């Protein structure tokens, strides 16, 4: 398939309803992530003395959870702009895709760290 024409994209009201629901869920998720982040940081801070590895891992997870929350908040805003603006739906959709790509890249990064540390802990405890 060749490169498509640079035409605009405008979602109709039915499609806007779906995107609006998506934006709401994303915003709620972002808030939940931003709530979880300080909890993980506190857990890490209080646990670091007794269990240094687990404590530091929780601190790192807390910091990344906060970052994920902020990226998700930006993606939610991009989704909301798809509904609220006229004439720029495609641009906002591509921004949404870009924000989500950043979100999942960060998630793969932090997930990999947790994976390696958990594997080491399992092996040590065997």
């Amino acid at each position, binding site marked *: *398939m060749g490169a498509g024409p640079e035409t605009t994209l405008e979602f109709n009201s039915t499609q806007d309803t779906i995107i609006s629901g*998506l934006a709401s*869920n994303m915003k709620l*998720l972002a808030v939940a992530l931003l709530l*979880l982040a300080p*909890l993980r940081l506190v*857990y890490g801070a*209080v646990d670091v003395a007794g269990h240094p590895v687990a404590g530091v891992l929780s601190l790192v997870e807390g910091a990344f959870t906060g970052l994920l929350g902020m990226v998700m908040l930006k993606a939610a805003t991009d989704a909301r702009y798809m509904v609220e603006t006229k004439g720029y739906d495609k641009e906002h959709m591509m921004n949404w895709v870009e924000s*989500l790509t950043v979100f999942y890249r960060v998630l793969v990064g932090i997930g990999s760290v947790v994976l390696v540390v958990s594997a080491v802990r399992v092996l040590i405890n065997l």
Partner: protein
Amino acid sequence: MTRQERLDIGEKMFVGAFVTSVVIETLVTLFALTLIAKHHMSSPLVTTTLLGIVFVGCLLFLANWLYSGDLTAWKAAVGWGAFQLVLSVAVIIVFVVATARSGPGDTGSSGPTFPDYLGLPNLWLAVIKAVVYAAFVGALAWAPPVRDFLGLRRGEQIAEETAAVEVPMSGVAVPLTDEQAGAFASLSNWVAAAGWVLLVAGVLRLIAGFQEMGPKSVMPGIPGVLEGAVAVILGLLFFAPASALKLFQSRDMNHLLNVFKGFQSLYFKQLILLVVAVAAAALGIVAVFVKW
């Protein structure tokens, strides 16, 4: 998947759910009897034997009744599975609370306890039973192939293809350049990669959590187990939107809307799972300060 393949899978899942439950129920009862006999407790020995016979008997009766596809039998079987699940979870809670209340040097009372009478004298037996009955209820209540199979048994017409599997094309093309379509493909790959990473990391976290549960105190391992379970479920949930994004390589409007709906559904479920993760983190903080 063709209609016949779905029905075959449905029958295998149906038979598998009952056979697994009967085998596990029998093994759990035998193992429980061995543990109870070691502690010379006569009353729990009697109740465990009776309950084991009743539970296995009920499962065999329900399997025979439900094979006709009867709706009342289906409700009874799902209700039975849910009851067993609640019972197992209640026993797990009793173990957790009992561990939390007893001090590090406390060996507990030597007399029989509530779980002993129910034939679940060990935490792991309750966990195994909870997992088996959760799968049992899930297979009977939500698995589409099982529902199709049971529908056929009671004489209903089963559609040739499952409509939900296919997302019809609208014929309206989304005007994207190759670079923009590539961004969607890249997102699909990252979502799938995140799913796999969370799945493996979750399993490892789960194992690490179980390892942290000592014979006298299970509390230190609970946050890890909860977080691991959340990560595993989340990892599995990521595959649906990743597939939806792959389908959007068609650049069709319906497939784009399917992507939006897929993410909307994912984020709702993720929100629920995050509540569990928040609870796990809060529990972890409490566990550091309270001597379990």
